[in-house]
């Protein structure tokens, strides 16, 4: 290390440095100087003091490699008319600290791409390295970290292949001999061992960076190498891209150089390219350059953002987070996002371009290259926009929510993604694209039954045979709900439907399948619940005389529909419900309990309505009176009031002699028509309904309806889906501040330090608790008691066993 000649580029370097320093902004200059000083201090400290010697003669210039296959023609364009390019090269003022190093022309020590070089016994193919005794780093105080000094010792026998001695900012000189040999080995093997420590890759990358960013300013050969060097960076990224920081640096270098070299036009390319895939894991502290460039082009041209670019913007933005569902099912997430985005924004969001110009800055990985390498393009900088990103983020969030049930199913049943209950959880657009043999056979049965019609009746056994269930002869409430959901997504409805107050499917029963129209409801409104209960009661009454008068039924139904203001979807369902009531008459079972909850006033309303129904065909026979008496009894009303109500009907608004307007004539309702059976009674007998009472009924129906789901649910409890109940004997096990269920859950949780979300949910369910609520309650109690949460994390949850101990003690 005694020969340290002054490099040929010294004068021009200093000149350039002076100009550049003058042009730098204060802050940036300080930044550059500061960082360089820091590195310089570290390096000098590591190497010890060295004599400073300057010489005006070029001396040893390192080996002169044989140059092969390097194109000498330069094709890059520097300045397009609307692009300003500034190069800021960091140079310290000579007075700041005297440089101990001699100046060497970088071309003299650079091994060009395609050349081979033998260094201390290693054959290094492909070039793209600096080999020589000395080369000043661009900052001037230190030596180029990537320079391979062949005089330095190499420990061939103990190569440090694990990179144990690598530091955060490696320099070849700073490496111990064992690491040097591992580095040379990696180079000799073609720089492709995927297991190589990333520090070696970076050390090599520093050299390429320097060549691309700095050398081109003084070497006539360097610019021509750009293309080859960039493809080398691409190659490295394909091998080492799993390292987030390498992925970030390399992609950003590629984008920067391409923009700088003028390959990037400001015009909108046709067709507009697809975005590269961004991973939320590898996002950096700002948007990737390519994204900002492309999005800027779109904005500048006033073009809407295509869905894929909107998603890329979101995923790659620094503040983004993707929840489990989006990460567990990335492809589905992407497809659903694109679908929903197009639904919301058609061709895409149009974003007004902002005024801030896109300044593309590359922050080199090499510690000696710190500084401002930037290009300012005449495009808006989307990195400064928040509003559109917020909109996209909200959509992504909603899509994640939509996908969440399916994702959680997959979490519990990783190999059951195609099972019918899983598909029931898929959002409709994804279901349409789903490929599943189970689904195919399910659809075959449905289509065979339904044919071209709008409604059909089928045996429940056909469905039970297809749907996976715990018990062979019936579905549980949850299984039934799941079946209804899948049908709904396939555009079909079923009655009975647990979601609308029906009972779960049992074997040997009947069910009604029907096509759902647009905007079909998936939950019962109070009106609908009232209508279906009244219809149920009315059917009991109407079938009492042994025959069902079609006239009675239709009139009744139409009245219910119009009086209760049901929407079209609800009407369709009520029709189907009615068909089911006729096909599988439920009788009086459980009715009493259902009626108990009504107020006296409501009961009177129901009673009057029932009397009116019985009289709908213009006569009330003894059998009907018997049934009505039964209903009055069920309603807890005096039998006498029945007779006066009957009298009132006969005497007052008794059967009309002329047809009564039930509904204004209008276009007939779409949907099914009751099969035209030969009728015994002419349909125009008419009937009298006390419309005031009906109006009153409507008034109370909201409250009534509220009570209904409750009723159905109690009937259900008989079916044996009873949740876990802690008996009174367990009171001893109650933990302070918790009830029995949560106490039991706490004890169960103590068994393991981590719980997957699905296991935790199953456990909560077992104890009859709602998972998120249980988590809240337990953590709250833990905070009260120990000032720390019991469970942390999302999936899996981590249990703090110390807290458990303290809570149980």
């Amino acid at each position: 290390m005694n020969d340290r000649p002054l490099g040929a580029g010294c004068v021009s370097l200093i000149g350039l440095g002076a100009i550049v320093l003058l042009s730098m902004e204060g802050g940036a200059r300080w930044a550059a100087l500061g960082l360089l000083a820091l590195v310089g201090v570290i390096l000098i400290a590591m190497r010890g003091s060295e004599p400073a010697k300057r010489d005006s003669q070029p001396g040893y210039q390192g080996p002169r490699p044989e140059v092969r296959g390097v194109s000498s023609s330069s094709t890059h364009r520097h300045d397009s008319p609307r692009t300003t390019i500034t190069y800021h090269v960091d140079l310290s003022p000579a007075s700041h600290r005297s440089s101990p190093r001699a100046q060497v022309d970088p071309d003299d020590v650079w091994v060009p791409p395609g050349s081979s070089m033998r260094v201390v016994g290693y054959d290094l193919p492909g070039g793209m390295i600096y080999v020589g005794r000395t080369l000043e780093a661009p900052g001037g105080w230190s030596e180029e970290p990537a320079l391979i000094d062949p005089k330095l010792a190499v420990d061939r026998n103990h190569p440090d292949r694990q990179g144990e001695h690598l530091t955060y900012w490696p320099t070849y000189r700073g490496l111990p001999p064992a690491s040097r040999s591992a580095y040379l080995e990696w180079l000799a093997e073609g720089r492709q061992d995927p297991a190589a420590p990333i520090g070696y890759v970076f050390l090599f990358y520093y050299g390429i960076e320097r060549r691309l960013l700095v050398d081109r300013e003084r070497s006539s050969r360097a610019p021509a190498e750009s293309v080859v060097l960039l493809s080398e960076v691409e190659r490295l990224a394909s091998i080492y891209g799993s390292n987030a920081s390498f992925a970030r640096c390399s992609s950003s270098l590629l984008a920067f150089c391409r923009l700088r070299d003028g390959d990037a036009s400001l015009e909108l390319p046709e067709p507009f390219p697809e975005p590269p895939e961004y991973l939320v894991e590898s996002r950096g502290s700002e948007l990737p350059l390519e994204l900002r460039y492309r999005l800027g082009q779109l904005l500048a041209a006033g073009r809407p953002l295509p869905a894929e670019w909107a998603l890329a913007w979101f995923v790659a933005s620094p503040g983004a987070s993707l929840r489990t569902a989006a990460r567990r099912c990335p492809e589905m997430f992407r497809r659903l996002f694109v679908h929903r985005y197009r639904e919301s924004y058609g061709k895409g969001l149009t974003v007004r371009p902002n005024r801030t110009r896109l300044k593309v800055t590359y922050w080199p990985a090499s510690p000696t290259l710190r500084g401002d390498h930037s290009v300012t393009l005449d495009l808006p900088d989307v990195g400064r926009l928040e509003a559109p990103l917020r909109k996209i983020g909200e959509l992504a969030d909603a899509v994640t929510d939509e996908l969440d049930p399916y994702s959680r199913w997959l979490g519990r049943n990783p190999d059951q993604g195609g099972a019918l209950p899983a598909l029931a959880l898929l959002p409709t657009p994804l279901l349409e694209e789903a490929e599943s043999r189970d689904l195919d056979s399910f659809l075959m049965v449905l289509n065979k039954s339904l044919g071209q019609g709008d409604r059909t009746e089928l045996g429940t056994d056909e469905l039970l045979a297809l749907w996976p269930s715990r018990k062979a002869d019936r579905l549980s409430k949850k299984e039934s709900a799941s079946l209804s959901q899948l049908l709904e997504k396939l555009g079909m409805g079923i009655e009975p439907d647990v979601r609308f107050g029906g009972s779960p499917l049992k074997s040997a029963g009947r069910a009604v399948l029907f096509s759902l129209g647009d905007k079909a409801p998936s939950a019962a409104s109070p009106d609908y619940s009232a209508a279906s209960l009244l219809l149920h009661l009315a059917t009991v009454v109407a079938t009492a005389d042994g025959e069902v008068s079609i006239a009675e039924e239709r009139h009744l139904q139409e009245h219910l529909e119009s009086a209760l203001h049901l929407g079209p979807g609800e009407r369709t369902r009520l029709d189907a419900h009615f068909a089911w009531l006729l096909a599988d008459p439920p009788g009086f079972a459980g009715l009493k309990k259902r009626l108990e909850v009504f107020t006296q006033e409501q009961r009177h309303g129901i009673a009057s309505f029932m009397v009116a129904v019985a009289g709908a065909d213009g006569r009330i026979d003894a059998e009907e009176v018997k049934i009505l008496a039964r209903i009055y009894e069920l309603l807890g009303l005096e039998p006498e009031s029945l007779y006066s109500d009957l009298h009132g009907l006969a005497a007052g608004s008794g059967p009309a002699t002329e047809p009564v307007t039930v509904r204004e004539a209008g276009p007939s309702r779409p949907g099914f028509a009751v099969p035209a059976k030969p009728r015994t009674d002419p349909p125009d007998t008419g009937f009298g309904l006390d419309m005031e009472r009906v109006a009153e009924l409507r008034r109370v129906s909201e409250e009534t309806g509220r009570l209904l789901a409750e009723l159905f649910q109690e009937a259900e409890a008989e079916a044996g889906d009873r949740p876990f109940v802690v008996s009174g004997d367990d009171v001893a096990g109650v933990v302070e501040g918790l009830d029995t269920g949560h106490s039991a859950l706490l004890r169960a949780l103590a068994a393991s330090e981590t719980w997957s979300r699905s296991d935790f949910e199953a456990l909560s369910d077992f104890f009859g608790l709602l998972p998120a609520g249980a988590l809240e309650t337990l953590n709250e109690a833990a905070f009260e008691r120990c000032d720390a949460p019991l469970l942390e994390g999302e999936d899996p949850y981590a249990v703090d066993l110390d807290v458990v101990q303290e809570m149980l003690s």
Partner: protein
Amino acid sequence: MSPSGIRPRVRDAIIQSLRAGVVPGIGLRHIQVGRRDEVEAMIRDLDRVADAGSTFRLIVGEYGSGKTFFLNLVRTIALEKGLVTAHVDLNPDRRLHATGGQARSLYRELMRNLSTRTRSDGGALPSVVERFVSSALAEARQQGVGPESVVRDRLQQLTEMVGGYDFAEVVAAYWRGHDLGDEELKGNAVRWLRAEFSTRTDARAALGVRTIIDDDQIYDHLKLFARFLRLAGYSGLVVCLDEMVNLYKLSSGRARKSNYEQLLRILNDSLQGHAVGLGFLLSGTPEFLFDTRKGLYSYEALESRLTQNTFAVDGLVDHRGPVMQLENLGPEDLFVLLGKIRHVFAGGERQSYLMPDDGLVSFMRHCSETIGDAYFRTPRNTVTQFVNLLSVLEQNPGVAWQDLVGQVQVEADPGPEAEGLEAEGDSDDADEADDDELASFRL
């Protein structure tokens, strides 16, 4: 857990936030400096809220004076007191009053950010609902009645409030969804509660209810929600509205006025005790309050209620009025703050300090030489750089702090961005000129 111990998760969260130049969401007590009187006043406010009362506070301070920090700090205290919090930054798309969905959007964001002590980073809405339902479930089991009737009984008192009837319906639907394993129904119930339904038709099809939480009802729904929280076992709701200056920046005078009217309603309710278990914490810059042309003082009814206590001058501060003025930080505050950050960085272990007090001083001197007083007046960048410095020291144990301090690059905080504000959806922009005329007449 010892009081000085800092859990690693909290430590990392603080450092990460400070590095990014944002106020941490958790662990703020570890880096709180000064402001004792203000904090005490806020604690009294929060106690009142937890005691079924209400509060309304407007935190006023210059850019960089720590409004957001203070808001977050109060938020974490509220959580400790068993209150639930909801916070949002106002922006042109999120306002208190609107007709184009911007108020609904504000409510949506509030509900997304709903936090409890155990879910302090938002997303607590389902937890809160489930906790309510769980307790109803336990009661139902004890009494041997159906859970849904217990749910409805408990919510009975809400049905008389605006929107209360459907609110109860939706909570009941959540329970049904759970009971049936119907994730979609549960999801829809949550979406409704978050005001994510934009049409009544959709809400009816999904949940069977007739209404949605719309622009004109968000305050009513906040009152309702506060009551619901009390039924669920929490003490109440604290709503934090940050960046109120965005109302001031609304270009349409009419839009501004209707937002101020909404504020007046909230303030009146609070002063008259109409809100139960509900507190509002707002933050804004001095011009938002004082500007008599576009600020709150442009609206007389608000001005008379917010006027400063005239005796509170010359260092005597009255913290009982609805307005709380935050003083700018001084160099001493910053010194203490840096010390606390160092403490957090060391995980609460004194022996792990990465630099001595001298280091802090020399760091501050360096910053002062570089950017002048801005280093403590708008300390965001100073703090960020300090955290970066500590990181470098931590990762490179061989490096001495003396070598690094002088190299730190710190830039003055340029202040709020003037650009990027989008006025889209501001349908009444066209009236701007007229409205401003009127506004100046009123004064």
